């Protein structure tokens, strides 16, 4: 008997999502046909290995290995980031070559570059991308700004969706200018006067915005078609994708996206209560974002890139007051629905490790970059699975032997008792391919339990 989702416990949901992940479907909803029995075996072994590492109930057969790049697959395949963003076939070719050549237990799919033309159609301003603000050979980079002004917290708190529609989106997408004129949709409640709400849709600026949206939607669909085909292909070849999608810590939503680093930091002094209230308001939205994506993908893991809570970015008190409570709530909200949060502690988070260990065991997967990994093992590592810590600089300027020695040391430090996955620590663009191979090989060589 299959239980209805709503009747399941968190634990049952957690298991059900892993069961879905290990038994992938094709686009028609039938069981996916693997390329070979070996591919199917490899796929299931990798997922079982990852699952055992995450759940920390029993040891995997060996330490799993991830390779989590940014634009490395493009450089490795000899194409520029610009080509990867504008030619979806080339992008998929590059990421396929990368996965087939390095054979990690988990990969990130081919989503990183994203659809260049889509960003162009909507005149996206939050990022500069190859050919639009950075050179064709460079990766895209964020243009932080105060896209939300200091006096707009009340508007955000009152109705986040309405605020995004009318204020935030038109500021970060030039072509969504017409959204400023849209009606508040919750005003559409009666026969009487209802047509008034629709007048904006007759106005040229709004129509121009919708025209751009149709084009953007068509482009996004085209891109997603390429990604979907890519996912099916690499899954059929036996290579699991690590995460279904992402959500964020509320402090980072404000600090990265809305107010920027400077803005959010000054708000902690000038209007702390508003900032806290806004983060409370965003928390259920971030939980829902993660859960919806996991459900749609039939995949338990949701990525959470962590930024503005790193060492030095906040004092301990500020971290405890502003960053951790809503970040934890988002993770607990995901866990309650069986989803595994995968926070990536980019940069240094050594001073935060103890605080962030206050979580149920076997429910989280942490990407650790340059934090003290031995301390991470003794803190978060007691309750959650760790991956990462192979440094970007070592992958670029080190030798394969140095990489192997580093990984061996990592395995000695972290793999005892399970709960560790070998991986690079930060999403990287550049690396010597032989060093990436050395990382993967070392996991296989030294990581057998």
């Amino acid at each position: 008997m299959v239980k209805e989702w709503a009747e399941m416990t968190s634990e049952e949901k957690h298991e059900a999502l892993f069961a879905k992940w290990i038994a992938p479907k094709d686009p028609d909803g039938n069981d996916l046909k693997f390329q070979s029995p070996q591919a199917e075996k490899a796929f299931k072994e990798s997922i079982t290995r990852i699952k055992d590492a995450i759940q920390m109930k029993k040891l995997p057969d060996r330490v799993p290995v991830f390779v989590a790049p940014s634009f490395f697959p493009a450089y490795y395949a000899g194409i520029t980031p610009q080509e990867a963003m504008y030619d979806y076939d080339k992008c998929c070719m590059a990421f396929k070559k990368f996965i087939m050549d390095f054979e990690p237990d988990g990969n990130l799919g081919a989503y990183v570059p994203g659809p260049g033309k889509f960003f162009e159609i909507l005149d996206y301003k939050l990022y500069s991308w190859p050919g639009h603000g950075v050179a064709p050979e460079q990766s895209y980079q964020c243009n932080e700004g105060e896209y939300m002004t200091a006096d707009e917290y009340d508007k955000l708190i009152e109705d986040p969706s309405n605020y995004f529609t009318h204020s935030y989106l038109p500021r970060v997408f030039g072509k969504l200018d017409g959204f400023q004129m849209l009606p508040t949709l919750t005003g559409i409640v009666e026969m009487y006067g209802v047509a008034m709400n629709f007048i904006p849709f007759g106005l040229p600026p709004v129509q121009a915005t919708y025209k751009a949206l149709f084009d953007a939607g068509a482009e996004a669909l085209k891109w997603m078609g390429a990604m979907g085909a890519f996912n099916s292909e690499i899954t059929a070849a036996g290579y699991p994708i690590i995460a279904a999608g992402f959500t964020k810590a509320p402090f980072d939503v404000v600090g990265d996206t809305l107010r920027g680093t400077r803005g959010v930091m000054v708000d902690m002094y000038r209007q702390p209560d508003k900032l806290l209230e806004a983060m409370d308001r965003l928390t259920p939205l971030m939980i829902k974002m993660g859960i919806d994506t996991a459900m749609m993908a039939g995949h338990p893991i949701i990525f959470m890139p962590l930024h503005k809570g790193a060492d030095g970015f906040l004092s301990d008190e500020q971290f405890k007051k502003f960053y951790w409570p809503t970040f934890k709530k988002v993770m607990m909200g995901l866990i309650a629905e069986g989803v595994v949060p995968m926070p990536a502690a980019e940069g240094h988070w050594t001073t935060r490790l103890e605080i962030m260990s206050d979580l149920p065991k076997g429910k989280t997967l942490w990407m650790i970059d340059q934090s003290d990994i031995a301390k991470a093992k003794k803190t978060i590592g007691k309750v959650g699975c760790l991956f990462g810590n192979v440094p970007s600089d070592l992958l670029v300027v080190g030798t394969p032997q140095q990489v192997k020695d580093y990984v061996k040391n990592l395995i000695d430090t972290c793999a005892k008792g399970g709960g560790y996955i070998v991986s690079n620590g930060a999403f990287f663009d550049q690396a010597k391919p032989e060093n990436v191979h050395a990382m993967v090989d070392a996991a296989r060589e030294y990581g057998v339990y």
Partner: protein
Amino acid sequence: MAKDLRKTLADLKEDEALAIVKERLDAGADPMGILNDASSAMEIVGERFSKSEYFIPDLIYSGEILKKINELVKPKLSGEGGVKAGGKVIIGTVAGDIHDIGKDIVVFMLDVSGFDVIDLGVDVPAKKFVDTINETSAQVVGLSGFLTLAYDSMKQTIEAIKAAGLRDKTKIMIGGGQMSDEIKKYTGADAFGKDAVVGVSLARKWTGTK
């Protein structure tokens, strides 16, 4: 009697600090005196940051308060501001990289430590660094970068400085998210600073300022 601006600003008490400035200006005080107090308050902020009593938000907030003080004082100022006693330091994020948060913190710390900082901004071509060294005769250059892609850009910048015959006259430090001593060697820089505090002590050492 007005309270101590130095202490109030160093303690990040925005409203009080601004009230003191207004009070002193209304009483006809010398605007330069106010700015001197403010700048010694910023020195205290820098010291507290070096001792890990203050963190990045404290630096940024103190900068915001200072900006407001400057707005109040500026209309009353007659001549130029004071000349910086420390040496000249050129700072920029290298070509291809547009990240600025880390760089801005180093600029801030050097500035409050008395250095004359020439901030070239982000995505700075190697030639711009070379030209600026020629124009200013700065002894210290700081290269900032966040991406692994910045490794090569830093290397090329340092090669360009060398090709221009300026390498012996300049000390070069690097910093940023994915930098390390290994990358220092790779790029040919003189030092890697893991944070802004190290950046300031390197600049002090190289320029012989205390």
